[in-house]
């Protein structure tokens, strides 16, 4: 699939993003996408849906003391970016998202017209 890279100044500045671990679970209305983004609070998370592509971005808010020295670094401090191509029709207006303990949960309700329906036989 051909993807178009938009020249967003924000992405040029932060060219190193990491892809978070995520999980998709079915729920009663549709699907829940659970994204692990530790260090991202409510205001730092951004969810957009455009033409069947769900984009999830998370800006890490790091708070370190002023004159700190690093002794051992194993964690990445880069921001998160995740793009998911949806293959079901999602009710775009009804998408909800919440964060808890560094996990962002995006609830994607399936659009009415895409739901399975039973057909009565005359």
């Amino acid at each position, binding site marked *: 699939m051909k993807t178009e890279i938009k020249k967003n100044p924000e992405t040029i500045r932060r060219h190193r993003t990491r892809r978070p*671990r995520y*999980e998709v*679970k079915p729920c009663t209305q549709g699907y829940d996408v*659970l994204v*692990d*983004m*530790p*260090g*991202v*609070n409510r205001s730092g998370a951004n969810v957009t849906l455009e033409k069947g592509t769900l984009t999830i971005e998370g800006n890490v*808010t790091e708070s*370190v*003391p*002023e*004159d*700190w*020295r*690093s*002794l*051992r*670094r*194993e*964690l*990445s401090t880069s921001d998160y970016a995740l793009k998911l191509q949806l293959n079901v029709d999602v009710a775009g207006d009804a998408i909800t998202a919440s*964060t808890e*303990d*560094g*996990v962002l949960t995006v609830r994607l309700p399936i659009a009415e017209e895409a739901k399975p329906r039973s057909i009565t036989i005359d």
Partner: protein
Amino acid sequence: MTLIRYEYPDSSVSEFDRMVNRAFSNFGRWSAFEDEPFSGPETARIPVDLYEDNDCYFVRAELPGVKKEDIKLELDNAVLTLSGERKTKSGDSEETTSFSRSVNVGEYVQGDKVKAHFEDGVLTVTVPKSEERKPRTIAIK
């Protein structure tokens, strides 16, 4: 539903470091050993940051989806151990993933003044240095 195991990005840590860490994690905590005889390969070793300023050492770990009450912190002499489990609900069943990590913070710390803060899935442990270890300015007479 399949459980996707998180691949921890610990490629920066050498095999030697891993061995040292494992050796330290069992060193001097035989009492804990009796409590958890099967903490074997099922326990994930989590990556941490260790940094300091003039007054404190800081240990930071990313623990997304872990509840505050499921985190256990232990300071035994010079070794700080973070452990606990992440519980994920899938339908009616509940899956738990255990994690553990030991970090050597040195002996010159005030063990009774250790503080921990957990926010947005990031745990920060503050270990104050003991007075004799802090840098001091010496006045020239």
